[in-house]
Every structure is written in structure tokens, then in C-alpha cells.
């Protein structure tokens, strides 16, 4: 479903990613880890099409992708309601969503424990509540691939756990392919997940089980 073939990304003289090669099959759950400045977000940006590789090729067979960017890149101090932000996640930009769409939004708001905030202004929400709104925006149109760039950074620990349960449900029940960039692997991982360790290039790519062995050989993620 996703294939990277000798992908390099250069910013001027700085080589952010070197010779990245991997294949990701449909229905996989991949965690991308690595130290700060290791190129994780650069890799994600090439995946979602925000950044073109300097050379190499990227093939993606997914009609529809969902994306949760790192929170600091999104303005939340504007006069806009939760409703407006969620509507902007629909594949087709529509003025009024259908009845089914409304039901879907309602169920997600309940899952995210923010049903009372639908017509609230984003400026009145806490960082964690805003992040839940952006999560709904990313999944509302039922994407084939869901790409999350450090989604839990703004979430409080109690909700973080529920969030990972939700991701697992999306993966298992809806067979969604999930690419998850994280600082903290520990509370996210199920045994059938894949892990990629990035440090300017792919240093490790394999099962979570094998990643333990890789770590014990002296590589540590941040």
C-alpha cells in the first residue's frame, strides 16, 4: 500500500533523510520512533505529500488519507467553532452535512467525551480538547490510512489511554492502516504492531518483538 524506494530529503546541504526504503502493507499499524530532530516529521511530511523527496520514489495506494499534524502548526486562536473544524475534515467540502454525517459526528464527539462542545469556540477549549477535535477531523471521513504526528502530546494521561484503545479499535474493527509518530512507545503498542526507528535513515524496521532485541543492542529512542 505504501512503498518508499531510495528516498532522500535534502534541505540545502543538510541531509534530513538518507536512503529510506520500506514497504507498508494494508491494515498495518506502524509506530515511528526516533530522537528529536531525527527526521520523523520530515518522513511524515513526505508521506502526506507536504514535502517532495529530493530523489527516490514514494508510491501510495490509498484513495483517502487522514492526517493529524503536530499541534503547534495549527492556529487555534481564531474565531471558529468545533463544528466548523470538524466539517473541514470531510472529503468533499460541504455546506451542510447529511443526516448520516451528523450522526457520525455525534458519535465521535461522544467517543472523545466532548459532545457538549460542538458549537463552542475553539478558543474556549483546553489544549487537550482542541487536540480531540483535530483527531475527529482526521478520522471523520473514514480514511484508508490514518497518519498521526505525535497525537498525544497535548492529551492528559487519563485520556491518552482511551485514545490508544480507540486507535486499536480503528485498526482491528475497521482495518484502518495507521502510521503513528511518537516519543513514547510504551503505552501505545500491541504485539502485532510494526516499529520503525528513524535517525536520519531507517535504522530498524520490524515487529515490536524484534525491536526489543534491537534496543538491547544499544539503540535507544528518545
Amino acid at each position: 500500500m505504501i512503498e518508499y524506494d531510495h528516498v532522500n530529503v535534502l534541505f540545502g546541504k543538510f541531509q534530513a533523510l538518507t536512503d529510506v526504503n520500506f514497504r507498508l502493507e494494508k491494515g498495518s499499524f506502524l509506530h515511528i520512533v526516533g530522537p528529536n530532530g531525527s527526521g520523523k516529521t520530515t518522513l511524515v511530511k513526505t508521506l502526506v505529500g507536504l514535502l517532495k523527496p529530493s530523489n527516490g520514489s514514494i508510491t501510495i495506494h490509498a484513495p483517502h488519507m487522514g492526517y493529524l499534524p503536530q499541534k503547534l502548526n495549527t492556529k487555534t486562536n481564531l474565531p471558529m467553532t468545533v463544528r466548523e473544524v470538524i466539517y473541514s475534515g470531510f472529503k468533499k467540502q460541504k455546506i451542510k452535512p447529511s443526516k448520516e454525517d451528523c450522526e457520525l459526528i455525534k458519535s465521535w464527539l461522544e467517543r472523545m467525551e466532548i459532545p457538549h462542545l460542538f458549537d463552542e469556540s475553539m478558543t474556549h477549549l483546553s489544549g487537550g480538547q482542541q487536540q480531540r477535535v483535530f483527531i475527529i477531523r482526521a478520522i471523520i471521513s473514514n480514511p484508508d490510512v490514518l497518519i498521526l504526528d505525535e497525537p498525544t502530546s497535548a492529551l492528559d494521561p487519563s485520556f491518552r489511554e482511551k485514545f490508544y484503545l480507540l486507535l486499536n479499535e480503528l485498526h482491528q474493527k475497521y482495518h484502518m492502516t495507521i502510521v503513528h509518530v511518537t516519543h513514547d512507545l510504551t503505552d501505545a503498542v500491541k504485539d502485532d504492531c510494526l516499529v520503525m526507528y528513524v535517525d536520519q535513515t531507517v535504522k530498524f524496521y520490524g515487529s515490536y518483538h524484534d525491536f526489543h532485541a534491537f534496543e538491547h543492542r544499544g539503540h535507544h529512542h528518545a
Partner: protein
Amino acid sequence: MLDFLSYSFIQQALVIGIALAISAALLSPFLVLNQQAMIADGLAHVSFAGIILGVVLSGEPLWIAIPFVMLASILIKYLSTTKTINGDAAIGLVSSISFAIGLIIVKKGQGFNISIESMLVGNIFTATLTEMYLSLIIMALIGVFVLIFYRKLFVMTYDLNYAKFTKIKVQLIGYTLSALTAFFIVIGVRTIGTLLISALVVFPSVISSQLAKSFKNTLLIGVLSSILIVIMGIFVAHPLEIPVGSTIVVLYAAILVFLLILKPLWRK
């Protein structure tokens, strides 16, 4: 009391004023809430040079000024996308160079029948019929543009990366927004003045975002309040014989101050 409404120049001023108010308020949230408020101010300076150049080169300065300022707006947009110059620096560069060239042409140009003061302050009561039609045309163009691209413009305003990710043509829409802003500014400079036209773009969103929770209401309240303020401005300015542009800006400012004082009180 409303006798003066029967004068055709007042009627014309009202049509131009309302058309410009609607145009500016429709552009306002997409520029102001996207940290591009100063682009209107910069383009007003460019218009100054554009119109003077137009006076020198042709009988109808607007035909030179409109493409000139549209090109400048595209240049500003282009410069601000390069990594070496940031957005406000690009506006500062292009606008100061244009203004300087404008002043040199005025000083050295022969046979000018245009005063710098009238360029800086503008006069809505002496506007021509062509300017009235152009005001209506720009209102229609901006109206259609915002209506068609509203959702896309909204996403681009609050999350440009997400807009790119969803395959919104951010370059094309961004350049179109700049070009329409330029067109609006040129028409506005002649009637409201070089120094004050940017206020018409900046105030609506700043005022309406004090009142509105949603982006849509910010846009709508901005449009309605601008229409009211421009009409009030014309009604107040004419009998007092003070410039309309200045009156409008003072009214906007008074309402903003009023809102800023009241807002903490009704929150309690």
C-alpha cells in the same frame, strides 16, 4: 434632514461606499486572521505609484494602476514564499519602493493636475461613474470568489498545511486572493485614500471577532457592521464637511474601543 440624499453625487458615494465596505469585509477574515493585514496597507502604497504612473501614461489612470498593483501583489506573494524574505518584509520592500518611485514621478512629472493630498486622503464625493461601476464589479468578483471558495479559504486561514494535505490549490487561491485585494485597493485608494483604505480591510474582522464565536459569523458580522459604518460615515462627514475616509476610520475605532471596554463586563 435627508434632503441631501437627492443629490446624485451622494447617491453615487453611497453605492461606492457600500460596495467597497462589502468587498473589504469579505476579504478581511482571510487576510487579517492569516497575519496578512498589512498587505492592504502595502498595496495602498503601491497604488499611489500605480495611479501616478497611470496619470503620466494615460488619460484613465485606473487602467494602468489596476494591473500594476495586481502585479505588485503577486510579487509580494511570491517574495514571501521564498525562504529568504518573510511576508511582512516583502510587503515593506515592495510598498516602500513603489511609494518612493511615485513621489519621484510627482516631483519630476510635467503638468500634473492631481494633488498629493487628494491621493492620500481620497474623496468619495468626486468619484467618477467609471469608479462606481468598478466598485460594483470588484464587489461582485470578491463576492463570487468568497462564495465559491469559502470552505477552502477557511481551511487555508486556520491550517495551511492541512489545506495542502487535502489537495486544496493553495497557491492558485492565494494568488487570486492577493490579486482581488489589489484590485479592491486601487479602487479604494481613489475614494477613501492611500492612508486609510487598509482600515476598511483590517477593522471588520477585528471588530466582529470580538462578538462572533464562529468563522462564518465573523465574516457576516464584519460585512453588516461595515455597511452600517460606511453609511454612517457618509451621513456624518457630508454635513460636517470632513473627509469621509477619516470619519469611517474614527467610527470603526470608536466601536472597537466600545467593544473592548464592554467585553470583559458581559463576560462576568
